């Protein structure tokens, strides 16, 4: 039977909710399942309410579900906030030391701290006890948890052993007291293909390493910070430099300096930081400097909701800066796309000598999912630099006017030829000019690069029947929710949500993970066939719908918009379509 199982673990910030989630997710993945994990946390270090939600399936899973089968409550609030989503007969494990509630059917109190101290010798192991208790209730193979513990604490065998002891006790406690509960039994799948489990943040950081990114500079800002901290941890091993800049302005200008001198360089930020980088973005445009910017969106404007998700910066990154210049915008929708977007971003940046913006958001950045191991043989590094012998030593022109708009690129110090990078309008040799004819030629030259780049943009992903009457249109991290909504609406989805959907028309998804230059013709062709179009976007004004209207003339009249800082679920889309 197909498994589609969801659990929530919740507690205060600082209680280790994330650790519980990570351990459980790893245990399920090592047992051959696919998972999708979201982190929901407040902008605080202690207190409040944080939760992690894990969905387990037998096939790739791209989104969270709304119905919950199991709740692990480290505090009372978790019960108050989440039990209404618990399915009939679903289970709730709570810390019986912290939480006092009336015992009822399917409410299972476990003294997490007491077991941790008694068996492991430290209250810190309470999280391990919670994980083991959940696995006990699901009758899952505890050996896998022991393996995960051994891997995590490989260098400290004593701690590993204490954790394993605590886990065993938690598992047995549940078996002894609640052995009668048998709604779920999660078996491991032997010999299942091995998969990676990682977040969008990790995928982008790994993608940057694979792409040969040598310099990353950023000012810390949620939800982008994880990328530079991950890279900083790998800097020695992989020969790269990660530098915390004094502000976002320095961050972008540092990478511009590094890129001019020949290193693949990027910065990571969120919308607020990107606001400060805008002038630097324009500089990269006119000075034709290949840089990559990851903009991990969160709700704004200004401070907004720091730890929440949004898709409201598309039009901003598309138009940011005074005047006009070509840029490329990618918006990966899955963890896998997030990885492969990075080498593509760097290759395009260097091929066309322009800034490439990779739009992410908190949902993609912080969610983990199972993916096939990234195929490094698919990664190429195409630098498009002149070889020493190709450089015209007598008359090298950094901004030589060409048919493609791309000027052959040499590096400063490479040969005797001098490389002049300039922020003013400039002549072919890089010097300041106010000549109207040269100015016009230079603007046109820069824009010619966009025609070449357009041919490299991946067409949107189309999912569903070719002749679908309804097309749900999305971009970026809503990929999973839209895709599953299509399954539900076409009748392939899980029974729980399917029953609520009014299925009248066939539905498909058109998802863009590469947005600019806009693949106008392809999109026109796809959208003109449908009877009804819906834009599914994490903003209040349907920004992609604007863009589609502007570029193709096609009006996307249906709009399902969400700007509360929380990710879309497939069920939400289905319900909104019924309205």
């Amino acid at each position: 039977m197909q498994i589609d199982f969801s659990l929530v673990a919740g507690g205060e910030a600082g209680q280790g909710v994330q650790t519980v989630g990570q351990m459980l997710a790893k245990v399920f993945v090592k047992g051959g399942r696919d998972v999708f994990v979201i982190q929901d946390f407040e902008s605080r270090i202690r207190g409040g309410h944080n939760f992690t939600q894990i969905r387990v399936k037998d096939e790739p899973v791209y989104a969270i579900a709304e119905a919950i089968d199991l709740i692990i409550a480290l505090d009372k609030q978790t019960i108050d906030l989440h039990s209404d989503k618990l399915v009939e007969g679903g289970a709730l494990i709570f810390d019986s030391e912290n939480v006092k509630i009336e015992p009822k059917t399917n409410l299972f109190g476990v003294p997490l701290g007491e077991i941790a101290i008694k068996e492991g010798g430290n209250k810190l192991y309470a999280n391990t006890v919670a994980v083991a208790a959940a696995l006990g209730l699901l009758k899952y193979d505890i050996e896998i948890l022991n393996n995960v513990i051994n891997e995590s604490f490989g260098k400290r065998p004593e701690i590993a052993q204490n954790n394993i002891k605590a886990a065993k006790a938690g598992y047995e406690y549940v078996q002894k007291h609640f052995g009668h509960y048998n709604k779920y039994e999660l078996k491991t799948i032997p010999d299942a293909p091995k998969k990676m489990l990682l977040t969008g943040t990790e995928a982008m950081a790994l993608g940057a390493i694979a792409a040969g990114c040598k310099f990353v500079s950023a000012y810390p800002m949620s939800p982008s910070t994880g990328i530079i901290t991950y890279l900083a941890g790998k800097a020695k091993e992989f020969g790269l430099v990660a530098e915390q800049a004094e502000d976002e302005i320095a961050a972008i200008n540092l990478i511009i300096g590094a890129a001019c001198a020949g290193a693949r360089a990027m910065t990571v930020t969120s919308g607020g930081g990107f606001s400060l980088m805008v002038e630097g973005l324009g500089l990269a445009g006119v000075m034709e400097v290949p840089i990559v910017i990851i903009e991990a969106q969160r709700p704004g404007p200004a401070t907004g909701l720091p730890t929440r998700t949004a898709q409201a910066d598309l039009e901003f990154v598309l138009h940011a800066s005074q005047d006009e210049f070509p840029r490329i915008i990618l918006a990966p929708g899955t963890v896998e796309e997030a990885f492969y977007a990075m080498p593509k971003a760097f290759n395009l940046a260097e091929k066309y000598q322009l800034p490439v913006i990779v739009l992410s958001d908190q949902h993609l950045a912080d969610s983990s999912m199972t993916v096939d191991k990234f195929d490094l043989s698919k990664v190429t590094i195409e630098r498009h630099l002149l070889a020493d012998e190709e450089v015209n030593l007598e008359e090298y022109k950094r901004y030589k006017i060409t048919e493609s708009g791309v000027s052959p690129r040499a590096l400063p110090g490479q040969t005797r030829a001098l490389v002049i990078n300039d922020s003013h309008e400039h002549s072919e040799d890089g010097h300041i000019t106010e000549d109207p004819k040269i100015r016009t030629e230079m603007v046109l030259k820069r824009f010619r690069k966009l025609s070449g780049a357009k041919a490299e943009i991946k067409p949107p992903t189309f999912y569903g029947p070719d002749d679908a009457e309804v097309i749900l249109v999305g971009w970026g991290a809503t990929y999973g929710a839209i895709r599953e909504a299509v399954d539900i609406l076409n009748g392939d989805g899980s029974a729980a949500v399917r029953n609520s959907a009014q299925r009248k028309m066939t539905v498909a998804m058109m998802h863009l993970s590469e947005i600019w230059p806009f693949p106008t013709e392809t999109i026109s062709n796809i959208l003109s066939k449908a009877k009804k179009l819906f834009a599914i976007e994490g903003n209040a004004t349907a920004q992609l719908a604007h863009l589609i209207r502007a570029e193709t003339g096609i009006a996307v009249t249906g709009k399902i918009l969400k700007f509360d800082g929380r990710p879309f679920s497939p069920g939400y889309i289905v319900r909104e379509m019924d309205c």
Partner: protein
Amino acid sequence: MVTMDDYQGKDATWCPGCGNFLILRALKMALVELDIAPHEILLVSGIGQAAKLPHYMKGNVINGLHGRTLSYATGAKIANHDLIVIATSGDGDLYGEGGNHFIHTIRRNPDITVIAHDNQVYGLTKGQASPTSGLGFVTRLQTDGVILSPFNPIALAISANASFVSRGFSGDINHLSKLIQTAIQHKGLALIDVLQPCVSFNRVNTFTWYRDRVYKLGDDYDPTNKIAAFQKSQEWGDKIPIGVIYTQDRPTFEEQLPALKEGPLFKIEVDYALLDNLLEEFI
């Protein structure tokens, strides 16, 4: 041998008599003296009259945004530490718009030379006060005279633990040229604040005004004594010291970056076998 002719660039568009001409000449002289060829250097500037300098000589150039000069210089030095990086920009660029980068680049201590053309006025925008304008300096914007306390780049640089802090005078081109040579040879960030008259917009701090006041620090002055240097940095008015005011040995930013030990950063290739192992950690 490198000659002055090798550094002949486009004709400058500065006002006749501008102090920038002298700084340009002193820089070229220093490079010729050190036998450094144009393709070995990277001239970095922002925006302002001074920031146009790279266009009026020869060298690799990044002429970027106003105030961000030191960010490009640092980024380029990280990417390719074989380049001799010389930042050359004005007091508005380095001390005003780029004030934050000035502080933090000093903290980083990349091996770059910073020539601050300090004319105590904004030239490109026609005569407003700069961070270093004196109290009471009247402009069309500061109509009752400057009331902000003048920025002291020397004192700030010392307090931020700069490894080389100096002052030059564009009216003494030989002294300035020697100072630039010392700065280029210094390992770490070397600041030269260059007193430079603006013949169009600063009628107070003229050539004569400076000439009457500047004096060269002698052999009896010890630039390695930080407290004495800080004291010296407070000297301004009737007597203005020029020369190396403070210097110390401090590891450069690049020396402390493990990745750069293998050679210039931009040449390091990806170790895919290592990356493949890293991917396994997620399984």
